[in-house]
């Protein structure tokens, strides 16, 4: 008996696999070495956060929000807390707003650094990984010196932030900002300018603009496909309308651009932090909020620009101390869908880079 051509077969990848960045599992259908289809199987980290929220008070739920995108904790809690503040109509003190923005943007830099680091690691680049993690560690030190926690600081509270930053925070932040241009050059030189990295990533895994919009992709992945859209500009929340920054946009739509746009975003975040650092006023960091958080019967949908995509918080209040429904729309969860759409025709090693370029964090995918 002779077999003509190759036979299609499917293999399982994950959930315990080093290049799936967590407990992501996919069934890969292959024709020889060429990928024909990918079925993402998620839910291994599902903790039922939406269900948990219904049995906890509004304040008790804040620590859980940090654990959604655990690489950029403060931005998640910022979205949730601002949604509750919208319901309660609470005004937040100026200093707290600035601190929130500084922490949110530091979180964004930390998250993008991990993305660049793991992206390079997936194509066997060990050195960029150590550079990125060296600098990310300094950001985590900021979180630790302020809130006592490295990755999930639980810093943002309803009505402000938990407490003011310690005395050593501002000088440390200043020296970090001074070192940043040099860091950016290093990342560029060692990873983005690298010939091997470029040949592995350029024009691999094209996500055209129309497809991205139809698949409801948000965040940096959408901006790497040529759509200049950022909630911080389109619908400014907190005090983002006071800062002067650009929305980077790239038109390559490929894996390289999805990595490179993160570097450009780090630059813009740096600008925001610099301006916030310059303008931050003195004063209280907590508004006068009632002891018991009891919003009136109403509903609100609040969107924030998370490092991984747009995050939406739909909170329905029934007038008690516990929410009737907390819906978390996470960017990474919706972005998973682009994997199957763009991976057809690429080989297994490309699947790994394409997967890395989506920048998923499983805490956010699985909720």
């Amino acid at each position: 008996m002779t077999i003509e051509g190759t036979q299609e077969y499917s293999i399982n990848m994950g959930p315990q696999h080093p290049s799936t960045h967590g407990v992501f599992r996919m069934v890969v259908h292959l024709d020889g070495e060429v990928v024909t289809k990918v079925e993402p199987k998620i839910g291994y980290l599902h903790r039922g956060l939406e269900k948990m929220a219904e049995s906890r008070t509004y304040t008790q739920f804040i620590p859980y929000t940090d654990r959604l995108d655990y690489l950029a904790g403060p931005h998640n809690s910022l979205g949730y807390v601002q949604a509750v503040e919208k319901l309660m109509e609470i005004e937040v003190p100026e200093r707290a707003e600035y601190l929130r923005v500084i922490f949110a943007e530091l979180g964004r830099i930390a998250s993008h650094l991990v993305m660049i680091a793991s992206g390079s690691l997936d194509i066997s680049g060990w050195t960029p990984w150590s550079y990125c993690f060296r600098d990310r560690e300094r950001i985590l030190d900021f979180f630790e010196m302020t809130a006592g926690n490295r990755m999930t600081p639980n810093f943002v509270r309803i009505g402000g932030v938990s407490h003011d930053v310690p005395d050593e925070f501002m000088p440390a932040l200043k020296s970090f900002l001074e070192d940043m241009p040099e860091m950016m050059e290093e990342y560029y030189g060692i990873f983005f300018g690298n010939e091997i990295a470029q040949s592995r990533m350029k024009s691999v895994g094209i996500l055209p603009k129309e497809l991205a919009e139809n698949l409801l992709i948000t965040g940096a992945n959408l901006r790497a496909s040529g759509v200049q859209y950022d909630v911080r500009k389109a619908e400014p929340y907190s005090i983002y309308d006071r800062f002067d920054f650009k929305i980077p946009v790239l038109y390559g739509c490929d894996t390289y651009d999805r990595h490179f746009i993160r570097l450009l975003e780090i630059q813009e975040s740096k600008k925001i932090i610099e301006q916030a650092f310059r303008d931050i006023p003195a004063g209280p960091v907590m508004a006068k909020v009632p002891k018991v958080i009891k919003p009136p019967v109403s509903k609100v949908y609040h969107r924030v620009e998370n490092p991984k995509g747009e995050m939406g918080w739909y909170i329905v209040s029934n007038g008690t101390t516990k929410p009737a429904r907390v819906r978390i729309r996470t960017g990474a969860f919706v972005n998973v869908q682009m994997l199957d759409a763009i991976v057809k025709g690429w080989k297994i090693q490309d699947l790994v880079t394409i997967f890395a370029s989506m920048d998923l964090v499983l805490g956010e995918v699985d909720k």
Partner: protein
Amino acid sequence: MVSDSLRARVGELAVRVNGEVEESLGELELTVNDRYAVEALTSAKNFADVPCDFLHDLCGMDLEDHLEVVYQLSSLRGPQRLRIIARVERDNPVIDSATPLWKGADFLEREAFDMFGIQFRGHPNLKRIYMWDDFEGHPMRKDYVVESHEQRAVMRVRKEGE
């Protein structure tokens, strides 16, 4: 925050699909019955001057006597935002799928099916997404009984052929 042209468009649409318009906290909301949901979504997507052409979120919601499917629409080209709420029956929750309009609604509808048991007619692959395939019940419904710790410790009885 809500522009007048959007308000006018939604007003026209509400008459056509027999819906109610509400405005609170700067957000416009249109409540319709399940059979008009896709018609409302299609019209909102194609509003002449203020197209709400990006499905930002789709989720289920349990109100004890009926279920809801909540669509949050926005646009990548403007500030317009619209929330469309479709009421569905609790005992037989069936609604038309939004996947022909947005491919990306796929996962969102699978999640709503998993958590609330809402059937989306015309969905290409309506399977559970978070819970495992032989999981019983829909955990986000208000009447779902969360097992006690003791119950959970009892091992699942294996079915024949497993």
